[in-house]
C-alpha cells in the first residue's frame, strides 16, 4: 500500500532512445516532471499540449515551488535535435537546470549492432 503510485499522467507513444550508460535517477517521484516529445514534435507536460515557447512558463512555477525539480525529457528517437534544443533553452530560462534525457538501457550486444 505504501509503494502504490497512482499515475497522474498518461504515457505518450514514443520510440525510446537507447543508451548503455543509462542510469537510475535517484530522485523522489514528486521531484520529477516529465516533458514528452512525440514523433511529430508535439510537447506534452502533465497530459497537456504545451507550445515550445510556453515551456518555461509552465516549468518556472513548478521549479519555484520545488527547487529539487528534475526535468525528464522523454523524446522520440526520431525528433530533430533543434526541438530538443529549444526545450533545453526553455528549461534554462525557467531555472530548472537538472535534466535527464530519458533512455532505455541498452546491452552491449545491441549497441554493437547499431
Amino acid at each position, binding site marked *: 500500500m505504501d509503494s502504490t*503510485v497512482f499515475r497522474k499522467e498518461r504515457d505518450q507513444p514514443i520510440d525510446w*532512445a537507447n543508451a548503455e*550508460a543509462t542510469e537510475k535517477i535517484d530522485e523522489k517521484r514528486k521531484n520529477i516532471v516529465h516533458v514528452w516529445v512525440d514523433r511529430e514534435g508535439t510537447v506534452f507536460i502533465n497530459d497537456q499540449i504545451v507550445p515550445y515557447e510556453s515551456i518555461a512558463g509552465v516549468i518556472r512555477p513548478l521549479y519555484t515551488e520545488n527547487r529539487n525539480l528534475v526535468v525528464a525529457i522523454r523524446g522520440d528517437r526520431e525528433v530533430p535535435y533543434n526541438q530538443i534544443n529549444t526545450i533545453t533553452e526553455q528549461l534554462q530560462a525557467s531555472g530548472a537546470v537538472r535534466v535527464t534525457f530519458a533512455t532505455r538501457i541498452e546491452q552491449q550486444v545491441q549497441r554493437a549492432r547499431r
Partner: protein
Amino acid sequence: MAVLQRKERVSDEIPTASMADIAFLLLVFFLTTTVFNEEKGLPIVLPEEAEEQDVSAKNIIFFILRPDGSVIVRRGERVLEQVVPFTQIEIILRSDMAANENLIAAVKTDPFAPYKHMINVLDEVKLSGADRISLQMLEE
C-alpha cells in the same frame, strides 16, 4: 400449560470470519495496481542562463554530429578534423582525457539530426567517464 420459549442468544462479538478474505482481496488489489516507477536516463546539469565561461581552446574537444549520425572530431585549436563512427568516441575521449584532465567534451549537434544520434554520442561521452560536457546546437 406453560410453553418454554427458547431465547436466541445474540453474540456480542464482531464476526471475523471474513477478515482473511478481505485482507487477501486488498493484498491482490494492491499487488496488481502497484507501479514501481524507476526513472532512468542520462542525467546532465545545464548551465544557468547567461552563465558563459571562457574556456581555453586546448581544453575542448568537439564532437560535431551530422544528420546521418557520423561524427566529426575536432580538437580545440587544431584545424585537423577526422570523421569517426560514434562508437569510437569513448576510446578517443578516454585517451584524450588521460592526457588532459580538464578536457571538456562539447557535443555540437546538427539541428536536423535525429535525437537518437545525439543520445548515441552523449552515451559514448558518459561511458568514457567525462563529467565536463557541453551540449550545443550546430549553427548553420
